C-alpha cells in the first residue's frame, strides 16, 4: 500500500493523467496518495496554509464519475495541484500570506481557479508565500516559513516557496505560482523544479490578489517541462474579465515541450547577468549549460544589455508604487481583519490600527516606498524615471531578440540560502531577483529549470531561458531539449538526488 502510494506521488502529471484516463488509477486514489503524503511531511515542510481534503476528494470523485460515464477527460483531469494562496477560491480561505486577510473566505473564484476546476484538476489546497508576494524566501509569510525539501534549514525561494516546496516534497505534481519579479522562477531554481513566467497578459490576473498590477503574472510550476506546458495550456488564454489579458491563442507550448530541440537556434548570453553577486558553483553550472546548448546544436551569441543593470532599481520603484495603491483597499471596512472597532473610534482610526497590526514589515516598507515615490514633486524623479528605464529594458530585449531566439542566464545568483540569513537585510534579499526582474519589466516570457547542483553546497542551480513576448513555446522547445540531455547525463531527474523526507 505505502509503496504504491510512494510510486503515485513520484509520477509526473502527464503520467498520472494517462493512468487515470486508461483506468489504471482513479483520481480518488491519486488524490488520497497526495493527501497522505501531505499529512506525512508537511509538518516539516510547511508548504500548505490550507489543505482542502474534502474539496479535493469531491473534485477527484467528479473526475472518476465523468470517466465512468464515458466522457472525454481533459489532459490534466484528476491530477492534483497546489494553488498559491494568492488566487481567490470560492468558499476556501485566501490569505495572501497576510494576517490582514486571516479568515477571509472569498465569494468568487479567480479565473485560474475556475479554469483548473473546469479542466478537472484537483486542487489540494493553498500554499504558503511571502506576504502579498513580497519576498524571495517565504520568510515574510505571516503564517511561518516553509522549508526547502533539499535542506529544511534553507529557504524554498519566494514568494512562491510553498508551491515550489510542495513539488520538491512530492506533495503535488503541479502547482501554480505568480511572478512579479521572479516569484515563480527563483523558487523553482532553488528547489530543483520547473517554473514558468508566461508573457504578461498570457494568464488572467482576475482573482489574483494584486501586488504590482503591471508586473504580476500567474504561471505553471511542475517537476518537468512537459507538465508545466500542460498546465500552462489549461490556465492560459484570453479572459474578458482581465483587460490586460492578451486576446490571442496560447502559444503552442505542449507541442513544443513534446518536440524539444535547440538545433540551429541562436542562444544569447547577456554580459550583465554575471559578476560579484554570483556564486561560483552557480556560474559553473551555467557555463556547462551553455556548453550543452552548443553540443545540442545551438549557436551561442554574447549580448550586451546595459539597461539591465538598472532593472532592480526601477523594479523597486514601480512595484512598491503600484502596491501602495493596490493594498489601500485593506481598510477593515468590507472584509478581513478589523482592529480597534470598540465603538469609540472613527473609521479612519480603525483603518490605521488594522493596517498597523495586519501588515508585516516588508509590506509596510514597500507601501511607504511607493507612497513616497508617487508623491507630488517626486513622481517624475522616481516613478517617472523608473518607467523610462522600463522602456530602455524593452528596447534592449528587442535588440537582443533581433540577434537571438532565446536568452539564457542563471535564474538566481545563488543557491538556497539559510533561513534567517537575509531576513534583516532587504538589499541582500532583493539581489535574489537580479536576473529575473528584467523579464517582468519588459513583459516577456521566461522559464527556470534545473541544471545541476552547485559543487560547493550540493544545492540545485536553475537555468533561466528567456523568450520574446508571446513566444512562450520557445521556452518549452529549448527547456525540453536541455532537460532531456541533462536527465540522460545524470541518469535520472535531478530531484531524485534530494534527501528523502
Amino acid at each position, binding site marked *: 500500500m505505502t509503496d504504491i502510494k510512494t510510486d503515485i506521488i513520484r509520477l509526473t502529471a502527464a503520467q498520472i493523467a494517462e493512468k487515470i484516463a486508461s483506468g489504471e488509477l482513479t483520481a480518488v486514489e491519486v488524490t488520497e496518495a497526495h493527501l497522505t503524503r501531505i499529512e506525512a511531511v508537511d509538518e516539516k515542510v510547511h508548504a500548505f496554509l490550507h489543505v482542502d481534503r474534502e474539496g479535493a476528494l469531491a473534485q477527484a470523485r467528479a473526475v472518476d464519475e465523468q470517466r465512468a460515464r464515458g466522457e472525454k477527460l481533459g489532459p490534466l483531469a484528476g491530477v492534483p495541484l497546489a494553488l498559491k494562496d494568492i488566487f481567490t477560491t470560492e468558499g476556501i480561505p485566501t490569505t495572501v500570506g497576510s494576517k490582514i486577510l486571516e479568515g477571509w473566505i472569498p465569494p468568487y473564484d479567480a479565473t485560474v481557479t475556475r479554469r483548473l476546476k473546469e479542466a478537472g484538476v484537483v486542487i489540494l489546497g493553498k500554499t504558503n508565500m511571502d506576504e502579498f508576494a513580497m519576498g524571495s524566501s517565504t520568510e515574510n509569510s505571516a503564517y511561518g516559513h516553509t522549508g526547502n525539501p533539499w535542506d529544511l534549514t534553507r529557504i524554498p525561494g519566494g514568494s512562491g516557496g510553498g508551491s515550489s516546496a510542495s513539488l520538491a516534497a512530492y506533495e503535488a505534481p503541479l502547482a501554480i505560482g505568480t511572478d512579479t519579479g521572479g516569484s515563480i522562477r527563483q523558487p523553482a531554481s532553488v528547489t530543483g523544479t520547473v517554473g514558468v513566467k508566461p508573457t504578461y497578459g498570457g494568464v488572467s490576473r482576475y482573482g489574483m490578489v*494584486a501586488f504590482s498590477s503591471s508586473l504580476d503574472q500567474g504561471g505553471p510550476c511542475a517537476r518537468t517541462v512537459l507538465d508545466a506546458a500542460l498546465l500552462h495550456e489549461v490556465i492560459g488564454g484570453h479572459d474578458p474579465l482581465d483587460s490586460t489579458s492578451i486576446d490571442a491563442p496560447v502559444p503552442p507550448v505542449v507541442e513544443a515541450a513534446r518536440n524539444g530541440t535547440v538545433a540551429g537556434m541562436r542562444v544569447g548570453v547577456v554580459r550583465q547577468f554575471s559578476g560579484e553577486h554570483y556564486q561560483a558553483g552557480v556560474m559553473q553550472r551555467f557555463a556547462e549549460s551553455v556548453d550543452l546548448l552548443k553540443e545540442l546544436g545551438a549557436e551561442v551569441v554574447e549580448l550586451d544589455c546595459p539597461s539591465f543593470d538598472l532593472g532592480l532599481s526601477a523594479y523597486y520603484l514601480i512595484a512598491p508604487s503600484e502596491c501602495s495603491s493596490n493594498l489601500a483597499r485593506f481598510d477593515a471596512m468590507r472584509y478581513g481583519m478589523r482592529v480597534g472597532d470598540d465603538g469609540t473610534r472613527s473609521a479612519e482610526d480603525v483603518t490605521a490600527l488594522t493596517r498597523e497590526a495586519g501588515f508585516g514589515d516588508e509590506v509596510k516598507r514597500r507601501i511607504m516606498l511607493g507612497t513616497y515615490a508617487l508623491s507630488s514633486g517626486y513622481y517624475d524623479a522616481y516613478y517617472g524615471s523608473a518607467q523610462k528605464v522600463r522602456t530602455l529594458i524593452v528596447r534592449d530585449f528587442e535588440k537582443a531578440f533581433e540577434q537571438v531566439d532565446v536568452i539564457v542566464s542563471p535564474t538566481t545568483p545563488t543557491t538556497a540560502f539559510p533561513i534567517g540569513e537575509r531576513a534583516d537585510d532587504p538589499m541582500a534579499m532583493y539581489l535574489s531577483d537580479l536576473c529575473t526582474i528584467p523579464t517582468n519589466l519588459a513583459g516577456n516570457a521566461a522559464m527556470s529549470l534545473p541544471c545541476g547542483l552547485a559543487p560547493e553546497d550540493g544545492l540545485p542551480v536553475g537555468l533561466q531561458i528567456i523568450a520574446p513576448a508571446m513566444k512562450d513555446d520557445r521556452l518549452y522547445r529549448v527547456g525540453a531539449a536541455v532537460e532531456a540531455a541533462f536527465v540522460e547525463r545524470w541518469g535520472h531527474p535531478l530531484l531524485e538526488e534530494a534527501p528523502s523526507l
Partner: protein
Amino acid sequence: MTVTEHVSLVPYEDALATYDPVMGLEVHVELGTRTKMFCGCSTELGADPNSQTCPTCLGMPGALPVVNAIGVESAVKIGLALNCEIAEWCRFARKNYFYPDMPKNFQTSQYDEPIAFNGYLDVQLEDGEVFRVEIERAHMEEDTGKSLHVGGATGRIHGASHSLLDYNRAGIPLIEIVTKPIEGAGARAPEVAKAYVAELRELIKALDVSEARMEQGQMRCDVNLSLRPHGREKFGTRSETKNVNSLRSVERAARYEIQRHAAVLDGGGTIIQETRHFHEEDGSTTSGRVKEEAEDYRYFPEPDLVPIAPPREWVEELRGGLPELPRLRRKRLREEWGVSEHDMQSMLNAGAVDLITATIEAGAPADQARKWWMGELARSANETSTDLAALPITPAQVARVAELVTAGELNDKLARQVLEGVLAGEGDPDTVVEKRGLKVVSDEGALGTAVDEAIAANPAIADKIRAGKIAAAGALVGAVMKATRGQADAARVRELILERLGAEG
C-alpha cells in the same frame, strides 16, 4: 441645522464695484448606462442597499475592472457636443485617497490624459445675450458609495454614533466636466453659472446619455469662486463650494460667495482655500475642511486598464449623429411657434418643450399644443406636484383633443373637461367625450329649439337685434349656451340667432 458662522456680507453691488469675480465650475454627471463603469452591476436607483454589487465594485482582493464601452461612447458624445477635441489616446489614472465609501481607496479616474479637452459651450442669458464658457476638459471616472451617518443630530459624520455604507452607487459612471476660469462675467457671474449648468443639463438630456436630474444627484455642481480687484490680472484665492444641486442654488451660491469674499477682503483679511457647504434654507455657505496644503492624490496611470484610443472614424460617426444643440433648437422652435424668449423659457422650465413638440408632430396646431400643456396640464401637474412628463396623458391624446376643438366638436371648456377625464384615467379623449356626453350640440334641430326659446324669452333684446344692433346678440348666445350647459358651438349659435332675426353678421 444650518451651522451659523459669523459672516458679514458686502452688498452685492458694492462687491462688484470693487472686485471682479472669477469662477470655475465642475459638474459631475452620472451617466444613464444600464451597468456600472467597470463591472456588470445594475445602476438602477432605489434598490436595497448593497444589492447591486460584485467583487469589482466592492474592491474585493483580486477583482479587476473592465471598461464599459457605452460609458466611453457617452463621454465622447459629451466631448463633441461641448466642442472639445477628442483624445486620440488616453488612459485612466488612479486618484489615491482613503475614504470608507470608496471601496478600493482609490478612484479610477482620468488625470493628465482626459478623453475630451479644449471646448466651449455658448449659453444664453435672460436678456438674450450669448456668453461663451470655455471647457477645460471632460473626463471619465467612477462614483463612490454612500455613507449614512446614524445617531447624530445633523446627518453629518460629526456626532454620529455609527455609519452605514451602501456601495450600490460605487462604480456608477461619471463624467466630470471642468470649465476654464470664467472671467469677464462681472455682475452677471451668478447668472452665467446658472445658465451654464442649465444649458449643460439640457445638452446632456438631448444627447440621451443621462436624465441629469439634479434633485436626484445625477448632476452635481461644484462652484469655485475667487475675487480680484478690478484691473488686476492675478486670480485671488478661491473657495470651493461643493455639491450645489439645483440651478437656483448655483446662482445663489455664487452670489453669496462674491459677497462673502468681498467682506473678507474689504476687512483686510485673506480668503482661505477651503471646501464649503451650501445651505438651501438660507442660501449661505459654511466652511468644510480646510485644505492646509494641496491634497496629494498620487495619481498614476491605472495599470489594470489598457489605454483607450477612440478610432477617428467612430468619433466622426458620433459627431454626425449628434442631436441639434438645445440652444439652437430653442431658437428654431421659438421662430416656428412665434413665441417670445420669455415664453420659451417658461416652457423650458416647465419641461414642456419636448411634449409640445411631440404634440405638434402628432398633428396639433402649435398654439393649441402650447395652450393645453402650459395651461390646463401645467396646472394639473402643479397641483399634484408631478412633472408634466409624468402626467398620465400622452402628446397623441392632447393632439386628439386639439383636433376635436379644431373640428368644432369641442369648445375650450369641453376640451378642458376631456383632458381632466383622460388624466383621471377614464380613457382616450374619444372615450371620455362619449362617456361624459361632452360633444358640442350640433344637432340643428335641438339647437334651433334652444335658439327659438331664447328669442321668445328675451323679446326686447330680439327687437334690438332686428333693429340692427348686432352686438346685442351676445346676450342671446349666452342664454343658449347656458341652456345647453355649454355644449353648443357658440359661433354656430350666433349664426342661427342672426339668421332667425334677419340680421347680417
